[in-house]
């Protein structure tokens, strides 16, 4: 990474164990501004643990998580969000008793620190801005539908609009395409890629489907048994001996991936 591209997020020696199991061991990597970084690895590699330490759901045993130079390790999820880190969940989560636009409005209300207001109706807060965000994910037509009625793919889009509400500089996406069909999958990632490029947002995402990873990621980090074993662009990862080894028998996954 060049000096002209300062890192938005930097992990230094991140470590976490559960009981005697070392889930994540001494993992270090950086994400540059505007970078689309995929974190991959076989099941049990420590991706989720790593992810949950970055988003604040777990506190690391050791190591630092620097967000633009500030150590955020051990902060609560809501505090990390306040620093400009948005996220989407593996199983999409929205507020089921609210309409689509109210979901986005809620995030905007929180962003402008109006959560504790008791008087003016929430529905009159930031409606224009919320509609604008929904338009960007092509969900403006569903704005006034209850969010629990949406198809799963649409819920994912709404989640994306919510995640963009606080103008994040970093977006954490845990398996953004889990539970989606192939064409839907590419549609969503293309949308994400377009939005983040426009805004210069950095993205860290985990993903199981290799075609998505190799088609869209600027850079890939590979975890295996809690350790970082490779860090590089698609070509470098594809040629990496160690990576081939941990994905033993899944060579065809790589072969099928576009360059």
């Amino acid at each position: 990474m060049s000096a002209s591209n300062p890192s938005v997020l930097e992990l230094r020696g991140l470590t976490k164990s559960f009981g005697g199991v070392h889930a994540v061991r001494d993992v270090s990597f950086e994400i540059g501004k505007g970078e689309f970084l995929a974190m991959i690895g076989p099941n049990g590699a420590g991706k989720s643990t790593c992810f949950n330490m970055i988003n604040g759901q777990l506190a690391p045993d050791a190591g630092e998580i620097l967000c633009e130079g500030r150590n955020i390790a051990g902060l609560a999820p809501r505090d990390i969000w306040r620093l400009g880190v948005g996220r989407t969940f593996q199983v999409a989560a929205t507020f089921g008793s609210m309409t689509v636009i109210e979901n986005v409005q809620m995030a905007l209300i929180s962003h402008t620190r109006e959560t504790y207001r008791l008087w003016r109706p929430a529905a009159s807060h930031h409606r224009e801005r919320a509609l604008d965000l929904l338009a960007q994910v092509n969900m403006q037509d569903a704005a006034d539908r209850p969010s629990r009625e949406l198809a799963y793919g649409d819920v994912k889009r709404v989640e994306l609009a919510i995640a963009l509400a606080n103008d994040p500089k970093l977006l954490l996406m845990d398996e953004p395409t889990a539970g989606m069909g192939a064409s839907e999958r590419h549609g969503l990632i293309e949308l994400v890629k377009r939005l983040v490029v426009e805004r210069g947002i950095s993205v860290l995402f985990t993903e199981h489907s290799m075609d998505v990873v190799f088609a869209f990621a600027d850079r890939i980090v590979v975890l295996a048994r809690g350790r970082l074993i490779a860090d590089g662009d698609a070509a470098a990862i594809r040629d990496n001996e160690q990576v081939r080894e941990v994905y033993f028998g899944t060579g065809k996954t790589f072969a099928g991936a576009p360059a």
Partner: protein
Amino acid sequence: MTLNAFLFQVLNGLSAASGLFLIAAGLSLIFGVTRIVNLAHGSLYMLGTYIAYSFATKIGGVTGFWGGIIATALIVGVIGALIEVLLLRRIYRAPELFQLLATFALVLVINDAALWLWGPADLLGPRAPGFRGAIEILGRRLPSYDLFLIVIGPLVLLALHLTLARTRFGRLIRAATQDREMVGALGVNQAVLFTSVFALGAALAGLGGALQIAREPANLATDLIALGDAFVVVVVGGMGSIPGAYLAAVIIAEVKALCVGIGVVDFGFITINFSKFTLVAEFLVMAVVLIARPYGLLGKAQGAVRSIAEPEEPIRPATTLLKVLGAVVLAMLLCLPLLAQGSPYLLVLGIDVLIAIIFATSLHFIMGPGGMHSFGHAAYFGLGAYGAALLVKWLGLPFGAALVAAPLLALGGALLFGWFAVRLSGVYLAMLTLAFAQIVWAAVFQWEGFTGGSNGVIGVWPPPPFDKAWVYFLLTLVLAAIAVLLLRRFLFAPFGYAMRAGRDSPLRAEAIGIDVKRVHWLGFAIAGLVCGIGGGLFAFAKGSISPETIHINRSIDGLVMVLLGGVQTLTGPIVGASVFAVLQDTVMRQTEYWRALMGAIILVLVLAFPQGIVGAFAALWRKVGGRT
């Protein structure tokens, strides 16, 4: 206290612990497998005492007593099985709250059934054949039956442990306790498993009750007392953990026994009668345990219960129709004093209804949008009522100042209790709020010098012109309208949305910067504050208050009001409170068996109208609207 006296109290405590354990074990077992918190468990225990009494007196002798105890356990087990098959089976998929209410309806029905069958008098059974004497221990005489009880608790614990560890039935119970969906997926017949577990739990309750007749009379009040004890034990020990139940039973029984043993102690500057702490001791233990170990001593965090509750509609601002309707009702109420000139009772009823509305709406505020099912909302009502009355009595505070102070005192209580309560969720939150309410109740009941104890505070009348019923009615109406409209306003404001966000998806809410616990805590405080207004009004409306005012029954009444109207609607609590208060003041007074009637109403509600009156109307409206 000498060492001997101390050890003697420890023995006493152990015999009481056996009784507690027998009640609690069945409750814990049933919860572990079916996830139903069986509020009727105390009633099954009470049935045990009555049935065993009948065996022991009608047949008599060794057969009547000991054979009767066995027969009682079996009969109560069968009753439990019937309850499971006829009622609970229909509501396993219903929201937790409905299950609690349905089983509470059984409490009411069973209580009146016992009243009808055995009459209101206490019935003292014979002494146990073979254990009539006492044994000299540590220089004191301990009834030999107590020694028998000390042994029976661990024996039942051992038997249950062996059943759970060694038999196929036990393995299924343990598996279902951990993951009942997986057990279902593996092809186990859940219906049979649930029925048999319920029967076993009920039989244990019956056994516990039957064993008590040699010590204490069968009494219609035992159901709620036993239930309270069982709850505390199960929650302290950890829901679903049988060894935890025994451990908790021993701890609680010992704490109580030691309170009695210590008695009055003079610290020089203050004299404390520790035996007065027995009522509150178990709830203090429970509160401490829940705060330190939210899942009890030996309990584990329950996997998220996959809620199958009907999802809630987004809230919409009032339609013109609703606004007009509200204005008409308000105008009619304003005219009520004119209409009621002939019958002053109408105004008294009106005041009762309005206070009930304040109570129910404030409870709904945290229960519906906040998702916090408080089983102790009476505490804030009581803090308001007692606060106002005591300030008038001891400080001579004027009426207006007392009415203002009432909600502030309730707010203080809600801030304190709520801070702990919002750290829990589901059943545990319900139990902790119940514990706090019981602590307030016990404090009021036992602190005679200050609160008047069971006599309460009398002679708290409002000054002129508020001594006239119609003026007081109008005052109540104005305050109730303000309270209802304010709470509604809050729900539509960002704060109300944040509260619902925290309920719908705590993870998502935290991930967009909402401090869910703090939002829910403040919601709890607002509800307490508003409830306190109702409490203050109540004290001056009745001119007196007694511990009855804050009894657990009032908390349950509030839940029924909210559900009667519909928990998922905003106007529901108003309708529910009105219907309930009118029913209570009219129909319920006509019959001796009002409990059974009330129970029947709840059962109909739960089984036929789970969405409440307003919810049912709304559904009907949508249906009709869809056709045209």
